[in-house]
């Protein structure tokens, strides 16, 4: 094969990989909605009084630890929230119901256990907090 053809093929390989990576970066930590058909309370987990951060993890997962740290810190800051982590192999029913295709995937459940939003991949703290504003009752504003 001609040397310049080899160079073009290798450059194309790097370009395609870079495009895939940029696509991944764009969709990382993206918030999705939960399909109406799946909007029913999740059973078998302990719920927080105002909401639950349900994290799906697996044994082979690079971003699960970082997501666990963030969600635990969010639930520690707000005691009415609870962080629950389930392994995909322990709850195949939930995995197929919510069609979990990557770990971590985080579902935010309201106080009745009904999922209201879904975050695919490693979470960012500000994204989680923005999603929580809808389900948390605002703290009473002090009257002056």
């Amino acid at each position, binding site marked *: 094969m001609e040397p310049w053809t080899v160079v073009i093929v290798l450059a194309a*390989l790097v370009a395609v990989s870079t495009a895939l990576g940029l696509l991944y970066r764009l969709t990382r930590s993206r918030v999705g909605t939960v399909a109406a058909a799946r909007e029913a309370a999740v059973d078998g987990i302990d719920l927080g009084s105002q909401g639950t951060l349900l994290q799906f993890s697996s044994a082979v997962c690079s971003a699960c630890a970082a997501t666990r740290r963030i969600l635990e810190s969010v639930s520690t800051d707000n005691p009415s929230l609870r962080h629950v982590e389930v392994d995909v*192999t322990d709850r195949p029913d939930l995995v197929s119901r919510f069609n979990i295709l990557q770990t971590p995937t985080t579902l935010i459940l309201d106080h009745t256990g009904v999922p209201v939003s879904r975050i695919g991949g490693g979470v960012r703290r500000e994204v989680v907090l923005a999603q929580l504003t809808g389900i948390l009752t605002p703290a009473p504003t002090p009257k002056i």
Partner: protein
Amino acid sequence: MSTRSSEIDPRGPRFSAAVTAVLVLIGVGLALVGGTPATIAGRIGQPAFLLFVVLAALFAWGAFAGVARHPWGLVFKRVIRPRLAPPAELENAAAPTFAQGVGLFVVTVGLVLHLAGVPFALVVAGSAAFVAAFLNSVFDYCLGCQLYLLLVRSGVLRPKASAASSPA
């Protein structure tokens, strides 16, 4: 895999993946130049074939001895990590170790098909390995983790109950 549950600096596997990506890219280039010789002896003697044999051995090392004992992992630990600030968090070694196994599988399939005389076998297998290593190194994207989840979901891979559910 005794290192399954050990915790490592996540930058170690990314460094290893960068070295691997460069070597695999060189291998793909050599495979494109070398083509597929007519005889088995000619195919074995190719620089591309020999380089991918070495890469397969390195993947096997990482998959069976654990990424922390992999040559690039040791270089990272001895030479690079002492110069860096401590990591924000540690990562479970299971993910990069599994990824090494995936790399071993892909490269081995390429080597076998190449020996059988299939044209572009090393180019295709090497390209797949390059994409995975490049995404891991540059974008911190774990392709092997996605594969693991799909294999578990489809029932091909049965996780050991103790390894998957216990945090230890």
